[in-house]
């Protein structure tokens, strides 16, 4: 009997702390949920607007979204496409392309392609490249990522879509060729994809999945 009581008390103490702890977490979650969601939306909107200026569109790009399955062309099992329109006319799409062959793991990109086929710009969202070498693809570390601004498949011509070491038009970094090379390749593939699916990208109703 004595042992049973001890066990029961211990279990009751542990259970009550589990309840208290869970309540604290639940309460905090309820208090911060909206703010966290707003933060994430704000952060996403900021990065989209850096590529597709706010005044050039009048729709809610975050909600006007479709998902694509085109792993071989856009690098990940599911690619999100944000679509910008003004007065119902297509303006630009932003694709979450993934570079599968970075120097140390996949690199996540945002690639904005305007309706006329030129690039609104490219940004690196996350990567694991070597600090000090490959990480110059980050906007905060060098201007390299801006070299995609306003480019298209005819500027430079398709054959020149590579780094200079491979006879292309884009700079590589001293000590890091693989990172820029794979990013240039992924941006080119994204441009080709958008060219091949130009109007389909805008026509599809939001968040319907499709085969690339």
């Amino acid at each position, binding site marked *: 009997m004595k042992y049973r009581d001890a066990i029961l008390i211990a279990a009751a*103490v*542990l259970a009550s702390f589990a309840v208290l702890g869970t309540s604290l977490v639940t309460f905090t979650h309820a208090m911060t949920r909206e703010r966290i969601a707003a933060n994430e939306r704000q952060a996403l909107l900021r990065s989209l607007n850096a590529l597709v200026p706010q005044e050039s569109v009048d729709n809610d790009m975050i909600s006007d979204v479709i998902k694509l399955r085109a792993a071989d062309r856009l690098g990940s099992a599911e690619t999100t496409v944000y679509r910008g329109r003004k007065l119902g006319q297509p303006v630009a799409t932003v694709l979450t392309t993934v570079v599968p062959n970075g120097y140390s793991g996949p690199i996540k990109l945002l690639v904005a392609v305007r309706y006329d086929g030129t690039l609104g710009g490219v940004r690196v969202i996350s990567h694991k490249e070597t600090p000090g070498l490959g990480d110059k693809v980050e906007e905060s570390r060098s201007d390299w990522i801006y070299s995609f601004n306003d480019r298209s498949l005819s500027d430079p011509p398709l054959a020149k879509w590579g780094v200079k070491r491979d006879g292309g038009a884009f700079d590589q970094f001293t000590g890091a060729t693989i990172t820029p090379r794979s990013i240039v390749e992924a941006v080119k593939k994204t441009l080709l994809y958008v060219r091949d699916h130009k109007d389909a990208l805008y026509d599809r109703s939001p968040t319907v999945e499709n085969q690339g």
Partner: protein
Amino acid sequence: MADTSYRELITDGLWHNNQALVALLGLCPLLAVSNTAINGLGLGLATTAVLVASNTTVSLIRNYVRPEVRLPVFVLVIASFVTAIEMGMNAYFHELHKILGIFIPLIVTNCIIIGRAEAFASKTGLSRSLVDGLSVGIGFTLVLLTLGGMRELVGQGTLFDQAHLMFGEAARGLTLRIEAFPGMLIAILPPGAFIGLGLLIMVKNLIDKRLAARAAERIDYPEGAEGAANP
């Protein structure tokens, strides 16, 4: 234990028993997140908040929790606080939260926190536990901040880069930048963390040795040269 003076608690936490430099606890976050001063400061403050909350709670409940279940209860308390603080940081310091990433939830596994709960707060009254949590936390934060500052300065030639993530837009001016210095990569990479921590420990030991020598002199001097140290 209960008679430790507040003064002693504070000097122990900050210096003599600094958990990062003397006990070498919490090394995983210490080494991983100390690549810039602001990252270090952010993680240090989050850890301090958890330490204060957990020490206080553990001290309050120390007479009600049976010894057989005390460790699971402490872990529950710590994990709840860490989760709550993580959500708070996500809400109010969103960008910093994104940078620190997994290391905030991992505060749960930081040995310093369960160590102070088990070794100190579970045997000590409320106010001392609170002071202990605060001084141990600040001691840890100072090491993170110093190591982060060193690595940032040597590694990328800046200090307090991205200060605006923590202190708002007004703090952008806080960032120091050495224009001509591109930085030595090794300081940012993992080996830099080990080298930097080693240097910090060396400096601390040197200072301690000098202080001890000076204290010994002070005792010996007035009582004459010979035999003064004998009991």
